[in-house]
């Protein structure tokens, strides 16, 4: 392999190499520094005069005397079953002191798109034991359901609780967790690792860690390495894989950094115009495939800058993912854990995973009724602040009280409290709905009321 010493320009994470043989777009590049150390990069732009390479590590120490080798192939991830239980860097190198991974296969990390015709329809209900998810924003195998959070909120605890408790009731299939940390602090990483070790989850997990002080550009490949591993475990080994990606906001910052270094025309708030396509190439790598056993379920976590859900990062994410779980500062301040605000939260695949035979026949309608009643009660709070409780009608007062009950009993639960869907979550929902006059339950048909409403159940 020919080594070039023709670097003409270095700008941020990019190097520009001149007078090369024809180089393939997207090729993996190895760069040797004068002290003998090596760095890796990828071709972003290639022509017969100039090749632009994005370097995944810091460009510190790089100079015009550095040597550049083009490997002639795309970036590949060595994968194997023994990866379970291992901790790797954001670039895919073991950092747990263990041996190198002996690959069973090397897979291109870009990941081809799943043909929509070959996709299996997600239909298996995942019980997370968290009422606000199971009851009102159900997670389904093969779904991508992000957690929209903000600085200072306990999104990591929620993600860990999901990872600990997630199961498909009545199923004994093999599962695994793939965790990718991008730009998270050492402290956060430790918290995740300790929890994985405490619960024994690490044995079934593959961990990728790109810490806050690791090179930002490396974050571009971390989620792709993680998803390549997940797809291998799911579609070749038949496991059900839960992928946690945190924090996607750091990923997008890295994307913006490269865009700026390339002097591209920026889109909204300086993020590149292709950020939608780029994020889609990550999020769309979730799902099931007809005729294969496993599944990839994604829970990306992102922190909304300034708690703003219209910021480009949560906005573009919401247009790609199948819903979102929104963590609310207001509930957190009230001391409610998990502080999930169900009103802006949504699971688009919910209806595929619930109902008789999956959860319970009354699930959809109970959920709708809880939503409607809580939304109404929540609106009334604003009114009470102006006119006082006494000015409310009898009907409105019951709704106002319902909103408090809903937050205090349905939303709030223990960090290790694992509620079953039927007796835990849905019956609790009915208990709360029973505080409302029966004729106000307009979303539920008579039959279901007579079957499940506590008033009739007691008889």
């Amino acid at each position, binding site marked *: 392999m020919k080594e070039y010493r023709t670097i003409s320009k270095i700008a941020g994470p990019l190097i520009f190499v001149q007078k090369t043989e024809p180089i393939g777009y997207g090729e993996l590049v190895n760069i040797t520094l004068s002290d003998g150390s090596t760095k890796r990069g990828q071709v972003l732009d290639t022509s017969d005069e100039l090749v632009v390479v994005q370097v995944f590590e810091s460009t510190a120490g790089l100079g015009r005397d550095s040597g550049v080798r083009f490997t002639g192939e795309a970036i590949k991830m060595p994968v194997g079953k023994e990866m379970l239980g291992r901790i790797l860097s954001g670039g895919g190198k073991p950092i747990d002191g263990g041996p190198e991974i002996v690959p069973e296969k090397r897979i291109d990390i870009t990941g081809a798109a799943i043909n929509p015709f070959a996709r299996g329809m997600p239909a298996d209900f995942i019980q997370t034991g968290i009422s606000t998810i199971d009851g009102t924003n159900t997670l389904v195998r093969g779904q991508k359901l992000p957690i929209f959070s903000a600085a200072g909120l306990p999104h990591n605890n929620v993600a860990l609780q999901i990872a600990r408790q997630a199961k498909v009731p009545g199923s004994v299939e093999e599962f695994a967790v793939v965790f990718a940390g991008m730009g998270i602090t050492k402290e956060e990483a430790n918290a995740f690792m300790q929890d994985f070790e405490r619960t024994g989850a690490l044995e079934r997990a593959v961990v990728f860690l790109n810490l806050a002080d690791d090179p930002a550009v490396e974050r571009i490949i971390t989620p792709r390495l993680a998803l390549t591993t997940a797809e291998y475990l799911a579609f070749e080994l038949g496991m059900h894989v839960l992928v946690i990606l945190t924090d996607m906001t750091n990923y997008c910052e890295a994307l913006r950094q490269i865009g700026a270094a390339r002097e591209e025309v920026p889109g909204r708030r300086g993020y590149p115009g292709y950020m939608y396509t780029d994020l889609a190439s990550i999020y769309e790598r979730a799902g099931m495939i007809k005729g294969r056993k496993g599944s990839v379920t994604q829970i990306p976590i992102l922190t909304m800058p300034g708690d703003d859900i219209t910021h480009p990062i949560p906005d573009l994410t919401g247009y790609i993912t199948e819903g979102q779980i929104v963590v609310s500062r207001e509930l957190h301040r009230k001391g409610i854990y998990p502080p999930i605000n169900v009103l802006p939260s949504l699971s688009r695949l919910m209806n595929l995973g619930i109902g008789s035979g999956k959860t319970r026949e009354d699930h959809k309608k109970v959920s709708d009724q809880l939503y409607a009643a809580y939304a109404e009660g929540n609106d009334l709070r604003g009114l009470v602040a102006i006119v006082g409780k006494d*000015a409310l009608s009898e009907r409105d007062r019951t709704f106002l009280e319902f909103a408090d009950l809903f937050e205090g009993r349905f939303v709030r639960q223990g960090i290790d409290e694992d509620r079953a869907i039927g007796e835990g979550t849905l019956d609790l929902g009915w208990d709360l709905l029973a505080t409302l006059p029966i004729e106000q339950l307009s*979303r539920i048909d008579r039959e279901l009321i007579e079957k499940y409403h506590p008033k009739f159940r007691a008889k």
Partner: protein
Amino acid sequence: MEGQQKTGGMLKRIAGPVVTAVGLDAHMYDVVKVGTEELMGEVIKVDGEAIIIQVYEDTTGLRPGEPVSNTGLSLAVDLGPGLLTSIYDGIQRPLEVLVEKMGSFIERGVSAPGIPRDKKWEFKPLAKAGDEVVPGSIIGEVQETNIVHRIMVPPNVKGGKLKSIEGGSYTVEETIATLEDGTELRMMQRWPVRVPRPVREKKNPTIPLITGQRILDGLFPIAKGGTAAIPGPFGSGKTVTQQQLAKWSDAEIVVYIGCGERGNEMTEVLTEFPELQDPKSGKPLMERTILIANTSNMPVAAREASVYTGITIAEYFRDMGYDVSLMADSTSRWAEAMREISSRLEEMPGEEGYPAYLAARLAEFYERSGLVTTLNGDSGSVSVIGAVSPPGGDFSEPVTQNTLRIVKVFWALDAKLSQRRHFPSINWLNSYSLYLDSLADWYDREVSPEWNILRSWAMEVLQKEAELQEIVQLVGSDALPEAEQITIEVARLIREVFLQQNAYDPVDTFCSMTKQYDMMKAIRGYADLAYAAQVAGVPPTQIITIKAKNDLPQIKFTKDYEPMLDGIMKAMEAEFTQLRSSA
């Protein structure tokens, strides 16, 4: 791609989906084959020696110096028997065939014809030798599914006398008829996607596209041949609304474009449609449907093309005399694909980075809709319903604004409504339909002469409620005058009984125009009784809490609802009579 190979060129630069070639003799929008794997691309800019090409497949691994050849043809689609029930990617490659050829993931460098070339169809001639035919003339038919596929003289053939025509079993490429000048006619025609298919005349639409969705048919109808936009932030129900339209609208052919959307949602469509029945024919809905699925992680250039592929297929069926409805979900993704390609061309950006030609492209696309007199004198229509996904739900952004300047119907989705699970979450105050006047006659004739009055009444009540709600927010509902307390209750009934509709309930998912009329009449019935009772001195709390109306929502979920509705109305009258006698 057939056609004569022109002189070959060479790749010079590759940067993402846009590549540069030199030494190529090419015109704008020629389809070219790029690299040794012959990836499909299209010329989008000519700059001196340099030819700029957008590539419809992943360009990873392409090197400068690889060959590029020009097919000399524009990007075109195959039109003929075999289209119905197909599922295509953005450039009309059947996804099912791609699975057979390359497995579950989409690899590149594989081509597949849009309609099967080897399948034989039973061709039944409707013309005979000696007949004079013109472009667009129907010369025969094929029973494709339960839909009859009419075989036409292509618009770009001059026409003349038929020399021979014979029925029988043919593939789409075999000659079925010959003209006197020697032109051979086949069942398949090809048409460049960026060129609208010609028509004789465009007409003003006068018939609504019935969708079975109460808020649409009842309050904001779209006409057959009309255009509508559904903008809304994520999670407000765009996709569900689009899918409901694809399922239940009374068009004869449905083209559904999933443009840059979610893979799992396309799978849901693919799984559901074959199982759903057309309420009219009882046949699977899939038999009248063509799906185009270009998910968000499939190549961006193919996403740009998918919208054109879809509308061209829609126009082809329109030319046969069918009413076609086309759903594009979402046009924002299409606009973003344009933006991405444009920024890679380093064009001077317009508003928010979108190319300056965004408005023109959107207008051109929507203008391909319409109720028309086809070349052969029949009547056909293409209705276009485009979803728009404005960033942050902000309707002032360029795609929404440029779309609203063109379309006649605006269904404004509202995140607030969806948060309280009011579905379909279409805001009744912001939405509008400019077809109301031209469709009024139809409603008079086909539904009831009362309908247009009922509709205006309902809109007034809703408008009044919005004003009253502002007062309630300040002083509470008890402070309102008695009559207005009743107005609030009537508005609540319109919202909860009429406007809310459950797409997942087997009965409520489709509501006939007759049922819509009956429901609205029942609400009006309550309102009349209520106001009369109030005038007679019955306290509003009693009027609002009468029991019979609590059963009204059950009507939605009941198939043979008439006896139930009668019962409710009778009980309601009895209750009112009693209230008035005790007042």
